[in-house]
């Protein structure tokens, strides 16, 4: 588990495009629960899922995900490295 906290602007980016969690999930090929878990900071997505979400929103990963500067310990669950 990384010691850095991953921040994300997924909810903002989604709202800017007037998409619901279900619609974004459908575009990215995942379930609404994954989108919800990422938005609420309970899950750190894999690179693959982050790319899919960025692609679905028509933006880059950097625009959605960034690291916290203070290096607080994250309580979110990272995706397995085997994924």
């Amino acid at each position, binding site marked *: 588990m990384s010691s850095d906290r991953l921040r994300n602007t997924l909810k903002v980016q989604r709202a800017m495009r007037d998409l*619901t*969690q279900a619609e974004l*999930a*459908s575009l990215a090929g*995942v379930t*609404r*629960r994954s989108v919800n878990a990422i938005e609420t900071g309970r899950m750190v997505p894999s690179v693959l*899922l982050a790319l899919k979400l960025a692609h679905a929103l028509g933006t880059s990963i950097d625009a959605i995900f960034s690291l916290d500067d203070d290096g607080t310990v994250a309580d979110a669950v990272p995706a*397995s490295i085997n994924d």
Partner: protein
Amino acid sequence: MTRSIDSRPERYLRFSHRTMVALLILTVVVGGVCLTMALRPAEDPRWMTSSVAMLPILIVAGLVALQKATLRGDRWDPRSPEIQAVLQDEWRRINMDRAIRVAFFVVLIAQIPIGLLVVRLPSLRAVMTMATATLTLGMATLLTLFLFFSRQEQDEQ
């Protein structure tokens, strides 16, 4: 943003969740009956043995009823992209991995109390009871934890 959606992926998601709940109930009930039969074979009520024989029919009937009530006419085709999205969902896989890890340790630790519970039984019945208790506990822990980890904080559609 609270657009209420009852789309097909939502129904598949709900079906998958309800199947897990049904599996948990089934595990507890069947495990309980088998444990009772293993621990007190002389006191087997007739309904217990006959209900075990009826189990496959009950499972199929329950699954069909659940499918009809939840999917409302949609088919559960594992090859469809929507069901693939549900089955290969990253959040689901992470929660299953976490649940498997914890359930493994619970089962390992539980071997001591289960062993103490069956220490006075004849060896064959002791083995049967240990196996049944281990399987029931493992499955029940796994499914409970999976459902707990998969709970949703915010029910935004």
